[in-house]
């Protein structure tokens, strides 16, 4: 079985948020429930200020702290699914301990105050147990893996688009949208990336493009000191996330 990993080249990312939009459309997430987001950081002052883009999906950690803390095994790492970390919505009790334990802030409890008004949950009220039911919805549903639109009171997160990836031919080293016969199996954020800053493939295959990129371009993992060991690697300048600074007080 493959060990799915993602490589994001920050020298190519333009911060266009197409990946964020594609993810939201593919997975029918609510505003603010950004399973995939492009964060930006700024440092320094004009005229030498810098901005850094940081696309941030779930890291699908090798040693995921969210899995360790979950009291019900609702969050689990599935080695038979490429090492993707899932949330079983039939088991989640909504204690939110995984959200506390995740170092990357990539878990969401959509049963909260809406980010934007009007509330989409009021416009498209949920049916069949869903938190909301938009008019167009991805037909893929697998609540045991947190795929689809979640019910109320559970935690949701990026699944590396497992509903697409899982259909790829066995033994495929890389899922590259440039290869026509593979493009339907590529995660939405990777497929839509215009500057081709994202790559997706098998981290267990030494010949895969993702492994070659990590090796040749010195791929790094975010917050590696936490020991979570993400399956997402970053290339290029800008992978160093500046420490938090509060807004200057007037």
């Amino acid at each position, binding site marked *: 079985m493959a060990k799915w990993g993602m490589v994001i080249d920050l020298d190519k990312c333009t911060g266009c948020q197409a990946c964020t939009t594609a993810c939201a459309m593919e997975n029918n997430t609510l505003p603010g429930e950004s399973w995939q987001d492009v964060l930006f950081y700024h440092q320094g002052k004009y005229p030498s200020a810098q901005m850094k883009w940081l696309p941030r999906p779930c890291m699908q950690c090798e040693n995921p702290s969210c899995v360790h803390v979950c009291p019900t095994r609702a969050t689990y790492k599935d080695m038979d699914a490429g090492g993707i970390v899932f949330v079983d919505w039939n088991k989640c009790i909504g204690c939110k301990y995984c959200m506390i334990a995740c170092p990357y802030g990539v878990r969401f409890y959509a049963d909260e105050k809406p980010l934007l008004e009007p509330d989409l949950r009021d416009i498209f009220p949920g049916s069949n147990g869903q938190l909301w039911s938009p008019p167009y919805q991805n037909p893929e549903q697998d609540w045991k893996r947190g795929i689809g639109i979640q019910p109320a009171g559970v935690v949701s997160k990026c699944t590396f688009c497992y509903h697409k990836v899982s259909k790829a031919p066995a033994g495929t080293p890389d899922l590259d949208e440039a290869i026509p016969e593979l493009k339907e199996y590529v995660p939405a954020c990777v497929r839509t990336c215009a500057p081709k800053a994202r790559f997706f493939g098998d981290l267990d295959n030494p010949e895969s493009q993702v492994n070659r990129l990590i090796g040749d371009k010195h791929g790094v993992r975010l917050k590696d000191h936490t020991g979570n060991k993400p399956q997402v690697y970053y290339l290029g300048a800008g992978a160093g996330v500046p420490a*938090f600074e509060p807004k200057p007080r007037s």
Partner: protein
Amino acid sequence: MNQENIMKGPAGIGLLAISAIVLLASFGYAIASLMSQGHAAFNATSTVPWGQPIATYLYFALASSGLGLIASLPLVFGFRKFYPVVKRCIFLAFAILISGMAVLALELGNVFRMLWVIPLNLQIQSAMFWMGVFYLVDLLFLLWKFQKLDAGEWDSKTSKQVGIGSFLAVLLASGNLALIFGMMSMRPFWLDGLLPIYFYLTAVASGLAALVFFTYLAHGFSRDNMSAPLRNLLEGALPKFFGAVLGGTLLFIAVRAITGMYSNNPEIHLVWSEYLFASPVYQASLWLGIVLPFVLMLTGSMRNQAGTQILVAVLVFGGLFAERFFFVVGGQVIPLFKGTWEWDILSYTPSATEWSLTIMGSALLFTLWVLGERLLNLSAMPPSAVMQEGPAAEAAAHA
């Protein structure tokens, strides 16, 4: 011995009625909000997932543990002077724990599901799994211990064994509760291997506040209505112990604040400098809720006065509730990986629904306690305690 307990009279009925009305009103409001809005009725968000209901649960659970530890003083360690408050301690520990669990139940996304998914999946790696196990064991031991004492078994072998078991359960439950926070290396404000010690100490402080307040309330805020051994305790060992525990609490807060402020890590020092110390509410709760009570308890003439003790108990209620709130929220206010989307410290203010849960828990505690005072004899103590301490205390009271 219980004839002077005003809760057995009309005052008890009045307080029971008020508590029950507040309980029903707050529960009704919370349920109506949750049914109509879901957890959007809370101001907790994906960036600050744990808000006031968790802080309330923490406060109640630790106050319960503190009362359990105080009850262990005579039952496990032989401090016989504490016999007059043992039954009230155990009953209060039970009532407060139930109240805390009720608040937690309404905070969870799917509370009933937990009844089968936790036992069926046995995730022993999770501290939260053990929290459920240890607090359930703690609750059962409290009931068992109370049943033994209620049957007059103060010194039997079984009673002592149950007392020791209960003491261990309390240590495990509250220590593990501390580690739910203390083991989170990705939340540096909480990460602390010694957090269980801090929790034990502050648990006893909040337990003592509850014990003092409810003991005086049961006796109409007058020592004249109390038995001699109880009066003796309230004029001697208990206020000294209370003062020492408050001093220890202050020391712990000071040590955490100094190490936190000194640290370069913004996820620790900014929480202290920009969130805790920058908040007038935190400042007020620290100075009025912990420092002032400690100062009041320093001199013997002050700490032995009934008025001082009641005032200190009420101030410590507020001080430690705020301490729990700022501890829980403080661990989350530095935005985690949000970049310039969130470029300031996060703010969180509890919603009306979250406040209604805190009020509901408090009203449930009062309701259960009044029922306990009316239906049970919470002032009972072994005959030997009355024989040994009664005459001396009477003499002291008349002197």
